[in-house]
């Protein structure tokens, strides 16, 4: 019977967590989120003996990723998303990146993760380390703002 090595267990964890960390951090900070996800995973591997014993290692590494971005972009307020190509699929509402930039990071993360990437509210709450009620509030406000910015009705 083979014993799982630390590398095996980290690889197993990271394979599942990498897409979600990537989605969450990009939702909050834009393009820089991908590098932040890489750095967070690296941190996780370097401290795997401790991180592996945590209840919510993905949530922990999410905060690590945000800290990395905070250090490098402390004064930068620009939020950059990839430029949507014209006429190519999937179609992207051109005003959406600008509208998302008008939200707070938590609001942006909430609407992107819940409505864009299909996370449950609980999953978002767990990752952010906040209550689901807080996620709900962020979501309500963010969706109202987005509808107003994009001139989209509730049932449109």
């Amino acid at each position: 019977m083979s014993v799982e090595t630390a590398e095996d267990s980290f690889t197993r964890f990271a394979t599942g967590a990498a897409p979600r960390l990537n989605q969450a951090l990009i939702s909050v900070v834009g393009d820089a989120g991908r590098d932040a996800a890489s750095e967070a995973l690296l941190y996780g591997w370097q401290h795997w003996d401790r991180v592996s014993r945590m209840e919510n290692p993905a949530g922990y590494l999410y905060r690590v990723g945000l800290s990395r971005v905070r250090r490098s972009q402390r004064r930068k307020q620009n939020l950059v998303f990839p430029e949507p190509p014209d006429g190519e699929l999937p179609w992207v509402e051109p005003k959406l990146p600008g509208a998302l930039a008008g939200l707070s990071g938590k609001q942006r993360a909430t609407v992107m993760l819940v409505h864009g990437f299909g996370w449950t509210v609980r999953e978002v709450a767990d990752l952010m380390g906040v209550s689901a009620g807080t996620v709900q509030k962020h979501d309500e406000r963010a969706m109202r703002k987005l509808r107003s910015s994009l001139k989209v009705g509730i049932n449109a």
Partner: protein
Amino acid sequence: MPDLDTILQDFASFIEEELPPPDVERVLSAAAMPPAMLRRWLRPVLVTAASAMLVLVVVGLPVLFLNGDESIVVDEPSTTVASTTTVASTTVAPTMTSPTTVQPTPAAPAEVVPFPPSELAVLEVPLSEAIPGFTDTIVMSAYSTDAADVDVMRWRSSESMPELLLSLEGTEGLVGLDASARWASLVSDAVLAVQAVPTVPAESFRREIVGLDVQNADMLQAVWHDTEPGWLAWLECPNSLDGPATLVTLNVSDPAAEPIRLRTFDQGCAGNPWGQDESDAAKPFVTLDRWANAGLWVTKWAEDAEGDVTWGFDASTASSVLVDADGTEIATVSGARMMATSPGGTSIWGAEWGEPCFVLSPDGQQRSAVPGVADGEFLHDAYWSPDGTRLALFVEGNGGINPGEEVLRVVDVASDEIVAELGRNVFVSNPQRRSPSEGIGPFAWSTDNRFLLYSPYEGWDVAPGKLVFYDIATNTTTMVPTADDLKEIRVQ
């Protein structure tokens, strides 16, 4: 135009394609380089603040500090930092920061406060001079800028900067501070733990692992008693799905006290938020919300019309029960969520958008309108003053408020009169923002009911932290820079 969900889903697909997840093998190969060491030069805070200031003075290029190289292997401490750390502890004065005072109306552009390149603020004068009339001591918790650690700080009004009392490394989550701010509860190594907050920095402390006697169990949630120091309540869950949740209380300040298991809730753990199994999502479960003088408020969540249980998302599926000291359910509130409780146990509840909020008597039997909230206005948050005579309300809606804007309104509970109101300067960090309903972080009243302390969110949550002091007596707000990412404020 497609609906908003479709727009967001299309954008998410585009993002997935353009920015795929990191490759795990590359992460592992990157880590094959020499082992990295974490930057611990940010602590202790006094040394850190001073050293950073010396860099500012000597180098004169704070931007370099703020925008240092953040390559993927970041953890080798630089020689610059190491050398300044050893000599800079007495260098404080050159980069002191003044608080920023903003008059409430009309809105004036906020002065951009030069935030010191450290975790904490340093004022030119003691806090009591920067905030005339403020004489309390603030205890606050914040996530550290280094990874996911948590710091607990104290700011005496006689001091010009906070002092670090406690730094909790490797914390998976800080639950909160008790009513006296002498105890911090946290989740560590998958169990609920409490830790004494030292009264002086670097004082030895002890950690109590509250959950150790709960083998094979996950701690679901915990709350401190609103006003009784040291009293902690939490919900325990067995690892099996569909298991009951057990409501437990403990006086952590009494070394001889044993946990008191009040009662269980059937299927309370079916929707255990720590669970990894998606199949447990559509099952009822309970959350622990508040421990007021009248009892413990526990919310039971049921399936919605589509058969899903979405924890905290849809108040229409919520049924909150008030549990007394014997574990008996003495009141029930359905379709609403609790916002605040008074020192006497009176509570304020909000419902879904468009539904009226209401005040509930301590015994849960009588409902009345929330003072100071007009028809058509939406109540986002409410906070009761320590003496119970006033309410601070964050309100959005119509009337004199621009649509989408939010005001901070102080109301006298007995007379229903508005004592003070802040309009566009609620979020003083950016009063030009037309729609400033970004949200409020931690909030506290001063002990004399005169000041409101809160931390507003900014467009970027990762921006340096700011603490706003709203003086009701003079109707002015004063902003001081403080620790990033504040989690909780207690005023003593």
